[in-house]
């Protein structure tokens, strides 16, 4: 339980601070911490495989992508320090986010979520593999195609020539 609280605090704090910072690189680094916290949560919950996937994809890949994107889209070092946001929009954003949070938490607390299981269902990686290669093979294939297309698409979009083509 204590572990959960710690993880929760880390995750939320890292996320909130990252979203408020004005230095983009710092934001991304803090987010890495947040994602790592989420991975820790998965471990705590007993989903080791997912935790590793989270680490690999987010902590490893997405963070790198983001950093590269940040660095590629600046003109000078100063650009990392992004301009302050419009107050109106920030207010609206906070209000909206607060409303959503309130609604969600209210709903969760208001729902009679009956008795909970005591232990995590035992799932071995082998079992996962069999599921993926068996009944879910169509999904796996689709995801594969999506990833390939996304990769190609990303390359094509990012590598477009500079002749003003949109």
């Amino acid at each position: 339980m204590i572990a959960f609280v710690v993880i929760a605090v880390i995750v939320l704090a890292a996320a909130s601070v990252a979203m408020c910072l004005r230095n983009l690189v710092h934001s991304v680094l803090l987010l890495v911490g947040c994602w790592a916290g989420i991975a820790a949560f998965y471990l705590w919950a007993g989903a080791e495989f997912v935790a590793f996937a989270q680490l690999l994809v987010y902590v490893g890949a997405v963070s790198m992508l983001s950093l590269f994107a940040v660095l590629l889209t600046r003109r000078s070092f100063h650009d990392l320090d992004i301009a302050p946001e419009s107050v109106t929009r920030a207010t609206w954003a906070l209000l909206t986010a607060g409303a959503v949070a309130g609604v969600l938490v209210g709903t969760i607390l208001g729902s009679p979520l009956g008795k909970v299981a005591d232990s995590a269902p035992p799932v071995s990686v082998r079992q996962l593999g069999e599921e993926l290669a068996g009944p879910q093979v169509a999904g796996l294939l689709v995801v594969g195609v999506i990833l390939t297309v996304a990769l190609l698409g990303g390359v094509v979009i990012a590598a477009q020539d500079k002749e003003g083509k949109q």
Partner: protein
Amino acid sequence: MITAEQLWLIPLLPLLAAGLGALTPRRGLAVASGAAIAGLVGSFIVSCLALRTALAHPAEHAAYNFTWFALGDGAVRLGWLLDPLTAFMCVMVTFVGSLIFIFSLGYMKEDPNAARFFCFLSLFAAAMLGILISNSLLSLFVSWELVGLASYLLIGFWFHKPEAAAAAKKAFITTRIGDLGFLLGLVWLYDATGTLLLFDNGAGALEAPALGGMAAQVAMFGLPVTTGIGLLLFCGAVGKSGQFPLHVWLPDAMEGPTPVSALIHAATMVAAGVFLIARIYPLMAADLVMEAAPIHALTVVAFIGAITALMGAVIAVAQNDIKRILAFSTVSQLGYMMLAIGVGSWTAAIFHLLTHAFFKALLFLGAGSVIHAAHHEQDIRRLGGLKGHMKATFGTFAIGMMALAGVPFVFSGFWSKEAILHAAHEWDVSHLPLYAGLCAVVLTAFYMTRLMAETFFGKARTEEASHAHENSAVMTVPLVLLAICSILLGFLGTPAHPWLQSQLLGAEVEAHGIFEGAGLMILSIVLVGGGIGLGWFIYGRNLRAMATDKDPLERASPGLIAFLGKRLMFDELYAATAGRLNTFGAAFSDFMDRQVWGGLVNFTGRFGLFSGWFSRDTDEGGLNGGFDAGSAGLRGSGKFYSRRQSGDAHGYLRTVALGFVVLVIAVMLGGGW
């Protein structure tokens, strides 16, 4: 012996000839015309055999029915019917038709499309014979429409002439108006009786059980079902037989070659309407037993016939085109026939139909002979003096004219017209039709005298007329044959010995002596004499010297004659009412289509689906996509929606989030869906 079962042979032979004619190349005139004539003569022989069969048992309606195709648990059935009515009509059509085909050989020999002409003629004959032998109103309707098609093709035979093309269209459309009524009557009858067969061993639509059932049923306005059906079917006859108010196509139909006018628009096709009403006479008369009915179908028939008879004769007085005069005389004579049926004597109508077929074909062919000889001059003011040049034509034409006018005792027209007037006299509902008929007698005699005088007497008024000379035997022999028949046929049904009527009815018609209706007969003789005398007095005594001279009547009353010359302005009236309504309807539909439906539907569709991201694309697509006229409104709606689309991603996201919040709160408050 030909029985009802073999009756299909009669239309088949011309149909085969038509098929052959359609497949021969344009140069194959000999093949096409040979096949056409052989086919029709063949059917004439078959018809004569059929007549012999029919006359052996005149009271019997020998029917042969068969299944056309299965429908539901039953079937749509067709059939052939052999009775004296069918047989007489078939003999008449094939005989007159054969003569006209032969005449056409001479008349059309220079036309490059003559092979096609014979093909169409054969098609027409086949369809016409199909009408006659039908025992089912459905096959009758099918043939009926095919007759309309053949008529369309033949009127528009010289289709490169815009007037001919327009006349053909007018004929088809006008008759189709009537045919729609026919169609509705047909489906009503089918619905009411479950059959379209006329005679079917007691189960047919014209037989007592069905008629009794229908007559007892009240449809609307206190009218029995049979009255409704009868009147709707009568609409078809009105269209086809050129009755008021759908007569306007018939004079225009004279744009077709003259043999067509003779065959279709004088002798046969236009008579189909009369034949139809005579054929379904039991149905038309079924409501007579309902004394309380506000109106009887036959009463309507009688008055329409009377109006038509008078109107046609009046208009004919002021026409100058030889074929138009004859056309209006046809309208008038058809009115007589309808009148006869309306007053209850369908046998008299058929008698007149038969005699009229011969003498009107004779008159038209005579006119054709004149036109052919005078190098297609049709205006009687520009003819004249043909008596000397064209003796055979003149003689036969005179016989035809006297038959039409009803010159007493010798000519057939006299006897058949007499029978009609007699029947009208005995009608106890009203005597107005009789008076209309008597007026028409005078007028007919008058305008035919005028026609004779202007065309044949005096001296030639134009180059064409002066060079006219008699045509070859292929054209004159049919004239002579028809002339002989125009005389002899009258003796089939004289009051003293009404053989034809007895055969048609299948029961002995009581002969009444010549003196029984003598008063009426004398009156009509006087009227005919008066008409001819008046005509001769006005036109024959002092013949016009120049083609451009004014008509004596026109001098006396120019306004009236001009009005009559314009055929009582019916065309103008229709153009101003129905025509304009139609134009308006078309314009309105088109407008609604361009302006309203496209925009409306597009708007709704846009509202549901494409209001979001693609609004600009939709706008462009919509705008270019043929809503050109409605584009302004569309552009407006596009603008409206695009203004909601700020392009601000934050705005969208915020909306979604707030929407979610609202939704959840709503659900919670609402306590579920």
